C-alpha cells in the first residue's frame, strides 16, 4: 500500500511569506507526527495528533507555527511570516496509535528554504 506522502517536496520562499506543508498519512493510522530536521542535526518533535484528542503542540517553536488535521486523514503544517531559521526539512510520520510498539512510518519530507 501507499506510504506517507508529503507535498511539496521542495519549497523556496521569501522571508516574511506564509507557507503550508501537507502530509497524507497511511490509511488507518490514527496518530500523526510532525518533525523538523535542520541541517546537520537530528529530528526535532513539533506536534502530534491522536485521533480526535487535542493535539500535543509542545514542540512548536513559536506561535508562527500551527498545524491542523482533518479527522484521521490529511494534516497541514502552516508557518506564518517565515524566517531564515525556519529553513529545514519537515518530516511527517504516522502510526496506528501512540504506543511505543507501534512503528512510526516517515514520509520523504518537505525541504523548506527561506531566502
Amino acid at each position: 500500500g501507499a506510504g506517507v506522502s508529503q507535498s511539496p517536496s521542495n519549497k523556496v520562499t521569501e522571508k516574511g511569506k506564509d507557507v503550508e506543508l501537507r502530509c497524507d498519512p497511511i490509511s488507518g493510522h490514527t496518530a500523526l507526527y510532525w518533525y523538523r530536521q535542520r541541517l546537520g542535526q537530528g529530528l526535532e518533535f513539533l506536534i502530534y495528533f491522536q485521533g480526535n484528542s487535542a493535539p500535543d503542540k509542545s514542540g512548536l517553536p513559536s506561535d508562527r507555527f500551527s498545524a491542523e488535521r482533518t479527522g484521521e486523514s490529511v494534516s497541514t503544517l502552516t508557518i506564518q511570516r517565515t524566517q531564515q531559521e525556519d529553513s529545514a526539512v519537515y518530516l511527517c510520520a504516522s502510526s496506528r496509535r501512540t504506543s511505543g510498539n507501534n512503528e512510526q512510518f516517515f514520509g520523504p519530507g518537505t525541504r523548506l528554504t527561506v531566502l
Partner: protein
Amino acid sequence: AQSVTQLDSQVPVFEEAPVELRCNYSSSVSVYLFWYVQYPNQGLQLLLKYLSGSTLVKGINGFEAEFNKSQTSFHLRKPSVHISDTAEYFCAVMGNDYKLSFGAGTTVTVRA
C-alpha cells in the same frame, strides 16, 4: 524528557569491514529504543527497535543492536558492511509521551 547522544558524527569504513555506531541516552523513565536509517534522498526507515525482553535486537539488512541499561547505551553493529549501507543513521528514544527524541545522526560512508 529524554535525550540522545550519538558519539560519532562521521564514520568512514571499508567494504566488508565491521562497523559500530554508538548511541547513549538519558531518561528518567523506561524507554523504547530505535535505530532509523536514511538513505540518500529517501525518507527514514526503521532498522530495529528494542521494546523489552532480550537485550540483543536483530534488524533488517544484517544490523543488530544491544541495549545496555546500566550504561544507558544502544549501540548499533554490523559485522560486514556493503557499499549500499552508505547512509545516515539515527538513534531515537521514546518515553511514555509517545514522542521520539532523536540523536544528531551518524553518517556512514562505505568505501571499496
